[in-house]
């Protein structure tokens, strides 16, 4: 792991402060909140958690032990709220996400390291129109009623990684992500929506040469979403609509009912990381497969939907650090092909929904640190070319978009004496992409961030405020995003 000092200052106030604290202050740690606050600049802006190594670039748990500076524990609190009508039809008008989290990283021995996090999350979907799922857009099958209500989800989110170095040239690692939440709609039809997500993360890492890492990743995954109706206070029967794409739906009326989606899948990835003093190159090639079976609770269970998704994804990133100049140049690229399709198992000879998607991406970035003022400036430009089709054969609705997305990022940081830093950034996305092509075309997104950090003793506090705004030229509808996050990190 390579650390970049972010604490440079010549200002008097900062100097005085630093002198007072220098005797016992520890170097600041920033992690990904730094890049996030600096406009999400990530191509050339190197960070504690944004390096080109097998853990930061691909989360290979086998490299966790090598990606280790010191143990720490962190408490963080986040609140974020999105609001507005520039959205897809089944997105909530207002989305409020609040969570508290503990996380930490610890070296267990000179060969072992572990990290973990525990979060308790509240997701509040307000003025949710008809939708009865946590994510209505995860496949073409969905449930609705005819009401608008609020759905509140509560639940924990956990993750852990563990690495074991087998030899100087090999390491293995394992980890998992797990989340479970229960959502309740406060209005007729009052469903209970249980979400359960589990993903394993198994990694193997070889280091054939000192500058070359070869990683292998296997990630099995399972998601289960169950919507249960147990009756209401309104003395009404439960009337829901089950959609198979947008054109075919049936109306079901029950006193109680449940519908379960089970998505199973696996992702296999291969990493190659080459690092020298000046040049660092990382590539990941991955293959992902997932299938989703939607079952209604009848006797025998009735399979009413099937969705399958395959993804071939190739990513690369490279950074070059100029000699004697604090300038880092970077390039990135991505080529992704996804092929999703759906059928009604009752009519398995025909495709109901076809959703191929291609992404070709090229990006370039630069990061420059002005010495000795401690001013860091970073900028990225990414050009994404999308080709998306959403063919709903059941509805005779064929949507297709081929467009270029421009993403520009700019981040600035002023850091002083390893004590405090002030950061700001902006990210502009010209044409937000939506796989289902339900978002109004040519929606632009502006994201402004500001924040800073302060360190004393073994403690550091980081904070970030985000203001985002989605706009579209042909409509007055807007959507804004306002959020904040505070981290308290204690180094050990």
């Amino acid at each position, binding site marked *: 792991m390579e650390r970049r000092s972010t604490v440079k200052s010549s200002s008097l106030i900062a100097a005085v402060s630093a002198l007072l604290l220098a005797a016992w202050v520890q170097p600041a740690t920033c992690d990904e909140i730094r890049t996030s606050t600096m406009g999400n600049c990530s191509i050339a802006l190197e960070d504690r958690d944004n390096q080109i190594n097998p853990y930061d670039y691909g989360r290979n748990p086998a490299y966790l032990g090598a990606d280790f500076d010191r143990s720490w524990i962190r408490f963080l609190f986040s609140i974020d709220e999105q609001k507005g009508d520039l959205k897809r039809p089944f997105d909530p008008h207002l989305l409020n996400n609040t969570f508290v989290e503990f996380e930490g990283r610890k070296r267990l021995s000179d060969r072992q390291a572990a990290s973990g996090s525990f979060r308790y999350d509240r997701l509040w979907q307000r003025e949710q129109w008809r939708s009865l799922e946590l994510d209505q857009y995860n496949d073409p099958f969905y449930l609705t009623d005819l009401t608008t209500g609020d759905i509140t989800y509560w639940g924990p989110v956990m993750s852990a990684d563990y690495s074991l170095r087998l030899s100087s040239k090999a390491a293995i690692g394992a980890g998992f992500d797990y989340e479970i939440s229960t959502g309740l709609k406060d209005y007729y039809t009052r469903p209970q929506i249980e979400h359960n997500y589990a993903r394993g993360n198994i990694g193997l890492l*070889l280091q054939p040469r000192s500058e070359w890492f070869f990683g292998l990743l296997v990630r099995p995954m399972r998601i289960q979403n169950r919507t249960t109706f147990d009756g209401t206070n309104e003395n009404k029967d439960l009337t829901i609509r089950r959609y198979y794409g947008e054109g075919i739906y049936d109306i079901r009326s029950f006193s109680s009912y449940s519908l379960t989606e089970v998505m199973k899948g*696996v992702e296999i990835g291969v990493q190659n990381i080459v690092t020298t003093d000046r040049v660092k190159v990382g590539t990941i090639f991955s293959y992902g497969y997932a299938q989703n079976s939607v079952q209604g609770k009848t006797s025998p269970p009735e399979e009413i939907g099937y969705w399958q998704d395959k993804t071939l994804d190739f990513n690369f990133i490279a950074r070059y650090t100029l000699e004697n100049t604090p300038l880092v140049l970077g390039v990135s690229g991505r080529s992704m092909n996804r092929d999703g399709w759906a059928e009604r198992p009752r009519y398995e000879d025909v495709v109901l929904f076809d959703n191929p998607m291609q992404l070709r991406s090229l990006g370039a970035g630069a990061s420059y640190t002005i010495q000795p003022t401690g001013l860091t400036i970073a900028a990225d430009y990414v050009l994404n070319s999308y080709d998306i089709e959403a063919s709903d054969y059941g509805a005779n609705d064929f949507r297709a978009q081929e467009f270029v997305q421009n993403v520009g990022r700019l981040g600035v940081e002023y850091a002083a004496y390893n004590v405090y830093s002030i950061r700001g950034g902006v990210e502009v996305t010209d044409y937000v992409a939506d796989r289902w092509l339900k978002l109004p075309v040519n929606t632009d997104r502006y994201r402004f961030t500001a924040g800073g950090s302060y360190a004393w003793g073994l403690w550091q506090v980081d904070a970030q405020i985000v203001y985002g705004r989605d706009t579209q030229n042909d409509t007055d509808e807007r959507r804004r995003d306002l959020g904040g996050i505070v981290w308290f990190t204690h180094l050990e």
Partner: protein
Amino acid sequence: MKRFFAIVSVVCAGALMASCGLDKPDEADGRSVLVLQAVDTSGVFSEDWTSVANAKVDIASATEAFKGTFTTDETGKIVIEGLPMGEYYIQASMRYEEHDVLLTGQAKKKLKSEAEVKDTLFMSFVPVSPIVINELYYAGCNGSSFYYYDQFVELYNSTGDTLYLDGYVICRSQQSDGIFDIEGEPFALAYYMYQFPGTRGVTRECPIGPHEFLVIACDAVNHHNYGALCVNLLGADWESFNPTQNDYDNLLVPNLLPVSTVGKDFTLSLGHTGIFLATGEEFTFAEYTTSSGVSPFIQVPLRTIVDAVETAENPSPTFRRYLTLRIDAGLGGIGMTKYSGQSIERKVPGFDSNNSSFDFDIGAPTPGYSH
């Protein structure tokens, strides 16, 4: 080398896992084509069968919420394209105003794998019943949970004469495991049977005037007192009353008495029910097995049945009919919710094409009158 093989093995194992899944079908949904030819077999206008131009063709999915109306061309043909796979009820109708003739024809088609399905709709007279079940209210209301005592059946006399219902029976059907194929039987099964007083063709105690409605209440009570959506049935013409049970009796309203020996009153199932009106001239008691054991049923010959309606809230693909297609080709009330305070009523009083999928609309109950 060992390590290399280990890596290759892991990759192969992963690839094997990833290769699971289904092959994507080559054909697309929503491309089915239904070709229909409407043919007049009535012999009214020609001794030969002739094509029916400009006939209205209604098509409704048997399981999904899809309905469409189309018109045949000059040759009596219609090509309906872009249909999703599924099962469909089809009805062709043609009204000749100048002759006051209504021809109808019906079919049920399953579109599964063939790209194009062809069929002929044989159109003829509807053997119009002089009396029809015009409105059926069985959903219950919001008086309380399980409050459905305000159910009623409304009959309509579509003739210009006063008719008499003496001896007629109104019946509720039920699933029986003893009958494998209801389409092969010459009778319908009644589980509940209530009878008008008198003797058919002899007495004249139960009149229904020309183009008038007649309401048979489960309990002739002002149920509106118990819930905003509940129906006031104090004005009912008749009331089903079971004297062997603890059934409410409004002494001001004459009674239909039970012939069947089960049940406490003439109540209808809220989810799936079949009801028919018969002349009562002939029926036979029989026992059949149901899910709850052996139960007494009554076989009613189809030729004595005046009108029949079958309703279902949620017909599934494995749905089993109570009534034969010969007396009701479709299902009414699909999607109507329990305790919603809604009824099904014929689109026009007396309109009866023998297919409840097309004959009825869902709406607020109107006992004794129409919308």
